[in-house]
């Protein structure tokens, strides 16, 4: 913590604003996990933290360490890029498995597959 006191005020204010904003957005996204009632609705909530939350907190980190060490710090751009590139993989996996399960269970609120074979349920223990 000691070196953070070296941060000049003109840099500390935007860093604080960005950090608070980023963590507030991530918090709201996590609250969404409780407040939204369906599985598919809950898929949306964490993307708040993955997009805006990550970007704002990473920018705050870039400013802090760029000012403290007096040079450009660009590591965080990699964090942003990789988080944005990899979240779809998990989300699509979760979404597809939920869709698959709901179709096999025959829920009515899930759209049918338009064409093709219905999923093979024989020999499946569900």
């Amino acid at each position, binding site marked *: 913590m000691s070196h953070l006191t070296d941060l000049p005020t003109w840099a500390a204010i935007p860093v604080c604003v960005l950090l608070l904003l980023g963590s507030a957005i991530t918090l709201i996204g996590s*609250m969404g996990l409780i*407040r939204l009632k369906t599985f598919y609705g809950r898929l949306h909530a964490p993307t708040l933290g993955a997009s805006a939350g990550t970007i704002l907190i990473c920018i705050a980190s870039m400013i802090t360490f760029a000012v403290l060490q007096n040079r450009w710090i660009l590591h965080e751009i990699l964090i942003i890029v990789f988080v944005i590139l990899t979240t779809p993989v998990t989300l699509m996996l979760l979404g597809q498995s939920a869709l698959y399960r709901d179709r096999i269970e025959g829920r009515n609120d899930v759209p049918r597959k*338009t064409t093709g074979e219905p999923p093979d349920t024989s020999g499946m223990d569900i």
Partner: protein
Amino acid sequence: MRYWFPYPLLSLALLILWLLINQSLSPGQIVLGTMLGIAFAWAMVNLQPDKTRLKNYGRIAVLAWHVTVDVVRSNIAVMGVILRAGKRPVNSGFVAIDISLRDENALALLACILTATPGTAWLEFDRQTGVLLIHVLDVENGPAWSELIRSRYEAPLKEIFE
């Protein structure tokens, strides 16, 4: 030339990645990064990805700007939905969209865009029928949503990739 540098853009991206990780622009790191970039591009040849050529670089900038604006807007919209979820039931639903995009890399990019935008989640793409199923958190009118995605994202992606 193509034989030695099968994926010039990938090699360049890897070089930039290497320099960013090492936080230096020293000649030694540039040489090392270039060598790694070329070596990994050769490894990529064995994976045999679909070759696509990027066209229309101006469109890429416009698309990137649209995506940035949409991400900010939908972040605010989704925050509103979550905070008001207690009082007002969430009106979410599925939207099926006919898209004519077939290029794998373009589809992957579309998936990244739709997922990075809170409020829309990519669920399923049927390669045979070309129907993309997404889930929208705050769906007001389904046809307008599919029209929006088709004109705002699919059309530029088609111009860039195909």
